[in-house]
């Protein structure tokens, strides 16, 4: 899957989970940039992303992610396998 398509589909996941159609993610986006993204909603986002791309994240992979860019790279790597 192309990187831009991953970004577009991931953006839709963000909009659905945080119920906000105006969200526009970038590689630098972090939880600080999205009002409803906190420790409680984080795992809902992870679960929705796993369903969207039919992949599974390991706990260690999630801990290592610092921003949406890391998130997308991890999705890309998993889809390439």
């Amino acid at each position: 899957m192309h990187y831009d398509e991953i970004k577009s589909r991931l953006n839709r996941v963000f909009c659905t989970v945080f119920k906000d159609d105006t969200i526009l993610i970038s590689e630098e986006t972090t939880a600080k940039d999205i009002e409803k993204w906190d420790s409680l909603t984080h795992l809902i986002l992870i679960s929705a992303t796993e369903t969207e791309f039919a992949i599974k994240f390991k706990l260690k992979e999630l801990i290592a992610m610092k921003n949406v860019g890391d998130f997308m790279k991890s999705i890309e790597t998993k889809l390439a396998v």
Partner: protein
Amino acid sequence: MASISEFLNALCYNPKAPLVFTSVLFVALFSILYVGYIFVYSNIKKRNLLLLVFSLFFYYKISGFYVLLLVAMATSDYFIGKQMFRVSTQQKKKWLLLLSIFINVGALILFKYTNFLLNTFFGIATGEPSPVLLNLIMPIGISFYVFKTLSYIFDIYRETIDEPETNYINYVLYVSFFPNILAGPIAKARDLLPQFAAKLNFNRELIGKAFVLILIGAFKKVFIADFLGANLVDRVFDSPEFFTGWEGLMAIYGYAMQIYFDFSGYTDIVIGIAMLLGFNVMANFNKPFMADNVADFWRRWHISLSTWFNEYVFYPLAYTFRKFKQGGVILAVLITFFISGFWHGPAWTYILWGTSHGLAIAFTFATANLRSKIAKKNTFGIYRFLSIFITFHFLAFSMVLFRAESLQAAQKIYTLVFTHFDISVAGQWAKLYATPLAVLIVAYLLHYSPLKWNEFFTRQFIRLHWTVKVLIIVVGILFIFQGFSSDTQPFIYLEF
């Protein structure tokens, strides 16, 4: 000669005379340490050795030979941590993680929870208390240093620490570091350990800030927390049958401020002492009663504990339950806060307190979208004001469980407020309790005052000429020691 022997006796472990930060003995010993520290602080090895010796002595003075348990636990995790980097398979790493959890949590359960668990087990089985109880005194601070050392092992397992600590002195110093060993803030290994390997960066601003923090912390403790405790809160909580619902309500409002000023005052002193030594310990409070929901409160109250639970308990649980979506998150929240309540103490009051906070956060989470819609429609800040008001009352009323010695005692306070409430006594009460009321109002004003004010006064203090600073510090210390009385109480969080 007699005075020398008295001084040497004062250095020995005495459970009736603990070495608290606000004691004359601590001030004297810390001053001696500091003089020596000035000579060695630029040499990392000598500096750390001096700090370790003082830290172990400090813990010995408070907990006697439990200092050996502290060293043994730090030593075991030092070697487990090193071994975790050496083993070749993930499975072996997991066994080492489980070994560390077994040792640390095992020690915590043994010293803190055995009698509670025995009584609960026998109570369920026979309806009677346990016929056998262990005669163990809990090592002070064990709940805190166990969390510190576990953070090191967890971070190695999660690969957020890149290499093991190879300096034994530095690791034992990290676990036993005297400023934060008794009641936090719970500094994580990845934050504090690297500081022990680095050169210190002292400057005029940091030293000035440290003195301001220590003086403010002591002021909070002596003039607000202890005063409210002795003159308002304890009276009602100890004998609720003599008071009306109005006085019960004022005691609840008073306790919210007492525990906040006690614990945040303690933390200010800890951060200040660490800063004087050149180390940075994380802040633990950020205007907690400004929170507009209970989840927000836990981002502002005892931050080092809540981030610890968030990283090492809630997150792995929520990850495990993530396929249940909202239900999974709620389940993880409830389990985390049940454990958090139990961590505070082996009593049903703490368990109920923790669970009530878990339920409140689950409510916050489940209603987030609805509340967000309401908040957007509200343009005058009324919604936010009401949110803070309701959250504060939930917190203050739940803290009754924290203060009461049993569920029955807590129930008496709740009954008092909800069934014997008579506002007509308010005027007479205000006359009788004019000073505690004034202190209570000052406490609330200080808590709700903008953070910028604190920063402004600190900046002004730093700018003063050193002679004026010394004068203010000396007058401040004398003023604070004048405030000491027989009512001076130990810091509340030392119980945990």
